[in-house]
């Protein structure tokens, strides 16, 4: 079974703090993704990475950055947390390659971040 783990289930931070959210997958997947999930807005893609040291902006990258130094790890960074970044953050991985059997995304349990 694919396992995607996220470093924290719950985080409380103060406005202006730098926040690191870590995600690790154990299936040697090429692609990794960060989403935020908000009620009524569904999942919105923040950043994704097709391979180590590669990153692409998603639909809402403002206020975020990412790092992928190792294949299994994809970090989301909030440079200066703001209250409008209070949300559930979901990490996902996918085998990658474009073939049908490589398209399924596997999700982590999520990190619920509260910025005060």
């Amino acid at each position, binding site marked *: 079974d694919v396992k995607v783990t996220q470093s924290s289930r719950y985080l409380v931070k103060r406005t202006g703090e730098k926040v690191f959210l870590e995600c690790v997958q154990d299936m040697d997947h090429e692609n990794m993704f960060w989403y935020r999930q908000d009620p009524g807005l*569904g999942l919105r893609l923040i950043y994704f990475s097709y391979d180590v040291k590669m990153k692409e902006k998603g639909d809402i990258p403002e206020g975020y950055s990412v790092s992928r130094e190792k294949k299994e790890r994809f970090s989301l960074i909030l440079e200066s947390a703001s209250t409008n970044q209070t949300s559930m953050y979901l990490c996902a991985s996918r085998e990658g390659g474009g073939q049908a059997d490589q*398209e399924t995304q596997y999700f982590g349990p999520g990190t619920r971040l509260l910025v005060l």
Partner: protein
Amino acid sequence: AQSVSQHNHHVILSEAASLELGCNYSYGGTVNLFWYVQYPGQHLQLLLKYFSGDPLVKGIKGFEAEFIKSKFSFNLRKPSVQWSDTAEYFCAVNRANRDDKIIFGKGTRLHILP
């Protein structure tokens, strides 16, 4: 740009009722289609997917979905729901054979009354 539209934001049904959740997408090319489910307190997981072939796709827990290309639709169905089907359901799409990012709909919260 691709988009996914889920018709219902919140659905309430009694046990044993039939379910149909609507999903439409906007993209003219070949697509992959997905339904994901998030049970309370659990992570998102794949319910079923369509890549090619038979447009009627069967997934886990008795769910199925039908791809109707002419209508750009991929509606989720279950003939008789159970209380344990209470969850949030997300339709998603990406362009086929392109290693493309997946676009998710806004989700439908399904609440089953016991």
